[in-house]
């Protein structure tokens, strides 16, 4: 072994192994970008997600017949390959084919189904659900994190918009499972941001978090006191974000140029150009989007004003739900890339009547907070943080469909979770053994205006005369904001069997099947381990040869040393990548380049070693 030779002269092996008690990370699975963070030595930090050390992984997945590409390269390809490249998949999570998201302007995708509980994209000759697309993104984050932390992850916290409904949460958790992750918790994004802020600033008081991301908007009001982050109220819109600014700009450009994009590629190019222009407009007062089409910042501000107005209603409602007024808030925290837009900052200042805070990077703050929560859950948190506790709320009321399509609320919005409600039902026919419950989520009085969550079919009620059976149904919303239903019959104490048919998303069986089918999943586990092994070996060899050069570099002429240095640089760069074959071949090249140096060192070292030693000892060392 090449490394072995160098280690002869190494006094005490330099080891890069980290003491790991539970490798946990926080993941911000964003509409535009995704991040992964972990707590090291008590401080959360975002991990590199690409070979250049970037922290933002564009949430873009490009499909080919036999593989996928995720991230920057997929983003670059999006215009050339718009149908097979899924951008902003988060907007489709937990949504059905009939939902507005599929019919938006400038959406280049091809959808495989027109009905049913799930959206399916037709990409590269197959169909994939948003859950699977998200799982691809999560797999890359997972691999990067496992490589950085030197081992398989024990658990993750994934953030979701606070205003995500049950189906969107389920879809996110399922994507995590599909990516082979142990999801410790789903955490609301504004709560995560508050956690990162609060711990950073050691703040107390009542804060609003205004979180405008790529595709979702959240407003949360939290009270921070003695380490407890208590969410008082939350609100938002899961189909509103920076993407809509791009679209508004695109509309403006189409109007101005009189030319609508006529192909998926042109649509994607237009949206990309508008996104870039939006970024420029945060610094510049005007910018050219297409040749001859120049847009001033005032025009952009005007175009996005209706979008901002939509956020104002949610803010006012949340303030009211929290039983507060804007003046009594101790601060307003800005989160999400879209809050870089000057008009957004001015708007927030107007609603809350105070200057907002944005001293933490609005792109990273959610992932950092998620890492802190993951650390707390793993029980490995810093001493000072051990008393931190998050008390979150359910964002939308849960209700049951009653006669005539009317909704009866069972759990109102903004109740602290976990929470439960119990209802007793009785049978209306003699010998009735089953019962159907339709659970909906939303604030409106009619079922048609709320979002269908699931149909629960209770079975196994003992046959009794009508009105005799007393069925206690318990609705428990867990700390992730996801509903669980249990039921039992009072007089017999018998547990009812419940079959759940989710209105949007996958049933438990479908998820199981997907997990079974995904050999890729097992495969990627193995790949990760192999990559980690290769990296550990590369580190060992690099450290050994660098040590050897320091100790015995004098044995080399400058022209002998140059190729070794080159091979070292090549291995270092391969080691920082994620291609284990590249690492292996760089190790071989370095081995080859340094063979004569190794030989010379061995000779020298033998001369020293043999002096005064038994030959068997030397032979042993050489094995």
């Amino acid at each position, binding site marked *: 072994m090449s490394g072995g030779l160098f280690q002869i002269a190494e006094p005490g092996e330099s080891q890069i192994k980290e003491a790991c008690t539970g490798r946990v990370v926080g993941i911000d699975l964003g509409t535009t970008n995704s991040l992964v963070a972990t707590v090291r030595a008590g401080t959360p930090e975002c991990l590199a997600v690409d070979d250049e050390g970037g922290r933002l992984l564009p949430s873009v997945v490009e499909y080919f017949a036999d593989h996928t590409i995720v991230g920057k390269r997929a983003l670059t390809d999006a215009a050339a390959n718009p149908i097979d490249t899924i951008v902003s998949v988060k907007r489709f999570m937990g949504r059905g084919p009939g939902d507005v998201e599929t019919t938006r302007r400038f959406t280049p995708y091809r959808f495989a189904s027109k009905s049913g509980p799930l959206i399916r994209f037709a990409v590269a000759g197959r169909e994939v659900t948003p859950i699977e697309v998200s799982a691809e993104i999560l797999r890359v984050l997972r691999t990067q994190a496992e490589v950085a932390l030197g081992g398989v992850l024990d658990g993750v916290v994934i953030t979701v918009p606070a205003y995500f409904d049950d189906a969107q949460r389920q879809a996110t958790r399922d994507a995590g499972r599909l990516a082979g992750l142990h999801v*410790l918790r789903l955490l609301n994004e504004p709560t995560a941001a508050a956690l990162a802020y609060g711990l950073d600033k050691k703040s107390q008081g009542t804060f609003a978090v205004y979180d405008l991301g790529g595709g979702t908007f959240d407003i949360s009001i939290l009270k921070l*006191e003695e380490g*407890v982050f208590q969410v008082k109220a939350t609100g938002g819109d899961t189909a509103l974000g920076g993407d809509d600014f791009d679209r508004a700009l695109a509309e403006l450009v189409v109007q101005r140029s009189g030319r609508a994009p006529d192909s998926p590629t042109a649509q994607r190019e237009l949206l990309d150009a508008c996104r870039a222009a939006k970024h420029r407009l945060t610094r510049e007062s005007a910018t050219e989007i297409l040749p001859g089409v120049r847009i001033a910042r005032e025009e952009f501000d005007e175009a996005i004003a209706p979008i901002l107005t939509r956020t104002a209603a949610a803010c006012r409602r949340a303030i009211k739900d929290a039983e507060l007024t804007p003046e009594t808030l101790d601060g307003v925290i800005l989160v999400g890339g879209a809050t870089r837009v000057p008009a957004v900052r001015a708007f927030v200042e107007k609603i809350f009547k105070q200057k907002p805070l944005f001293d933490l990077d609005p792109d990273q703050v959610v992932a950092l907070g998620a890492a802190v929560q993951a650390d*707390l859950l793993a029980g490995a948190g810093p001493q000072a943080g051990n008393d931190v*506790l*998050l008390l979150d709320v359910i964002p939308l009321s849960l209700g049951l469909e009653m006669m005539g399509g009317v909704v009866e609320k069972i759990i109102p919005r903004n109740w602290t979770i*976990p929470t*439960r409600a119990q209802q007793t039902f009785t049978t209306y026919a003699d010998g009735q053994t089953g019962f159907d419950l339709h659970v909906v989520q939303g604030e409106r*009085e009619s079922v048609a205006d709320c979002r269908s969550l699931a149909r629960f079919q209770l079975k196994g009620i003992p046959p009794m005369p009508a009105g005799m059976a007393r069925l206690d149904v318990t609705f*428990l919303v867990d700390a992730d904001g996801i509903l669980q239903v249990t039921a039992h019959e009072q007089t017999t104490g018998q547990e009812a069997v419940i079959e759940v048919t989710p209105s949007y998303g996958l049933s438990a069986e479908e998820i199981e099947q997907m997990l079974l089918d995904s050999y890729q999943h097992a495969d990627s586990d193995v790949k990760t381990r192999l990559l980690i092994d290769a990296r550990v070996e590369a580190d060992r060899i690099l450290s050994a040869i660098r040590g050897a050069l320091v100790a015995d570099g004098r044995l080399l002429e400058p022209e002998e040393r140059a190729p070794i240095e080159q091979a070292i640089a090549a291995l270092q760069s391969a080691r920082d990548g994620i291609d284990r074959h590249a690492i292996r071949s760089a190790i071989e090249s370095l081995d080859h380049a340094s063979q004569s140096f190794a030989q010379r060192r061995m000779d020298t070292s033998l001369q020293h070693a043999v002096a005064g030693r038994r030959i068997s000892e030397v032979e042993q060392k050489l094995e």
Partner: protein
Amino acid sequence: MTARPNYFELFGLAPNDGIDLLDLEARYRERSRICHPDRHARADEATRVKNALATSELNQAYRVLRDPIRRAEYLLQLGGVALPEKAPPALLMEMMEQREALSEARAEQDEQRICVLGAEIRGRRASAVAAIAPALDRGELSAVAEKLVELRYYGRFLEEIEAYEEAMEST
């Protein structure tokens, strides 16, 4: 079945202790720290469900105790006093008129009228709430019950107003 601690006992309080909201909140935080499932993330599934249930009970207790109306209802329930099924006829009549006025105003989208109707009932709700605490102190549970029935009608009326206001705001 063993007797479950009542909501007051969960917080180490007695039913006739007055509620100091800040003190209640501190007790709530302290107890949440003990039973919240996040504090037992590494426990087995059964323990986690147990903690989720215990926390949901604590959350429910906190919601009831910090709200004067819910707290009074709960006290009556503990005292075995049932709320009267029906409101006094005079109140019934009056509320029916108010509701009619409201549905007319909604049909005509007369925002100002809706606002006035809301303000009036909010005022009456506030004075009914204010009357509860002294009645409880005097142990006049049936007087408390009357006020609570009244508040139910106001509550339902205001729910409708609030739903309207919300719908207006989000358009």
